[in-house]
Structure formats: structure tokens, C-alpha cells
């Protein structure tokens, strides 16, 4: 038989500073892995504010080397005529 899960909710009263800052209890930050300087998600729901730690594991991204960046810059070169033509068309559109 399934046992009901024990509630893990806790409540604290937190002061709001004159600068609108609210400090989270250190124990909560540690438990949720919230580090200073990172973002948390705040959700306003009726008369409640829910703060969620970022729990997603980001998909991996490629780490480019200096040589690869040099190759990108080479690939990024465009003919002078194309650059001038597109610039002048942009200017014309801005003037509309």
C-alpha cells in the first residue's frame, strides 16, 4: 500500500529591505544548490511568489578553439559589392 509522502514544506518570515531585496535562508540555498550570482525563476501566482531553483541540465554545447574562430572569420568574409549593396538597401529601407 502506498504511504502518503511526508510534506517537505517549510515556512519562514523574511524581511524585505528598503532596496526591495529579500535574502533566502542559507540552508534553503544550499539544499537547492542556489549559488550567489546565478538566476532563479520567480513566479507570481495570485497572492504567492514562488521561487524555483534552475533544475534543468543544459544540453551540451561545442567549445570552439582559437583556430576554429579564425576559420569562422574567414568564412564570414563577404564580397565588398554584396556588403555595399545590402548596406545601401538597408539605408533605403530605413529612409522609408
Amino acid at each position, binding site marked *: 500500500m502506498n504511504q502518503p509522502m511526508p510534506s517537505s514544506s517549510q515556512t519562514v518570515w523574511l524581511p524585505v529591505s528598503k532596496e526591495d531585496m529579500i535574502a533566502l535562508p542559507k540552508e534553503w540555498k544550499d539544499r537547492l544548490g542556489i549559488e550567489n550570482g546565478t538566476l532563479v525563476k520567480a513566479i507570481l501566482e495570485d497572492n504567492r511568489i514562488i521561487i524555483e531553483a534552475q533544475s534543468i541540465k543544459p544540453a551540451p554545447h561545442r567549445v570552439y578553439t582559437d583556430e576554429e574562430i579564425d576559420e569562422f*572569420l574567414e568564412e564570414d568574409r563577404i564580397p565588398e559589392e554584396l556588403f555595399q549593396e*545590402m548596406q545601401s538597401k538597408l539605408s533605403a529601407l530605413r529612409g522609408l
Partner: protein
Amino acid sequence: MKVHFDASVIIAALLSSTGGSALLLQFVKDGLIIGIVSQNALDEVMEEDKAKRVKRSRREIERFIAETGVIVMGTIAEEEIAPYHGQVDSEDAYLITGANLTGCTYLVTLDKKHLLRPDIREKFLPLCIVSPKEMLEEIRSHLLS
């Protein structure tokens, strides 16, 4: 026209104001195309070594992105790239995911080695994987003709 950018395009635009990437971002700034980049790509751009290479602080890079008018989508999670497992390198899967999730027609990259390859381009059609120069030619033929 919705266009998804990878980190290489943003890095190139930061390094060269006369390249195709910088010009492309001007079209975004002027509202002629919608440009989207994921937080994953920006994480790569803002890594400490890249910030040194582009000679800009993290804050300056953030300002640059904000001024281009490019829309930044949230971090793509590892589980979201699962449908592309085995079809593309895992480090590139978030780009295909991001472009498809945001309904982009184009994915713009300068990465010839991993993405601007005939097999990869064909595999993810109708998403068009193009270089900035090819994208500019698309804009010229569709928007400016």
C-alpha cells in the same frame, strides 16, 4: 522570416563589423528578419576565454546582444535534444532543437566542419542550415528584390 543563430555567428559579429554576420544582425536590428539565439549558445560566447578573444567584458557582450534585438530563448535542456540523438553530434543537437522549437526556417552558422555539410543540411530539411553569406543572398532574393 525567422532565423536561428549559433555561437559562431555572434562571435564573428563581435570580431568583425564588415563580415556577413554583423551585416545579418543589422537586418535583425531593423526588424526585417527575426533573429533568435539560445542561452546555450550565449553561454559559449560568454565563456571567459571567448570574452578575452573578442576583447569585450561579459557585460559588453550582453549589451551587444541586447542592442541587436536578437531574441534570447531560455536554456535548452539535455532531455530536449533526445529526438536528435545519433543524428548529429550531441554538442550541435541543441541548435537543431532550438531552431525547430522556435519555428525558425533557417539556422545560420559558420561551422563548416560540423554543420555546413551536405549530409547534415539534407538530414534536417525543411530547416535550412546556411552560412551568413547564403542567408544574405536569401534575404536579397526574398525581401529586397
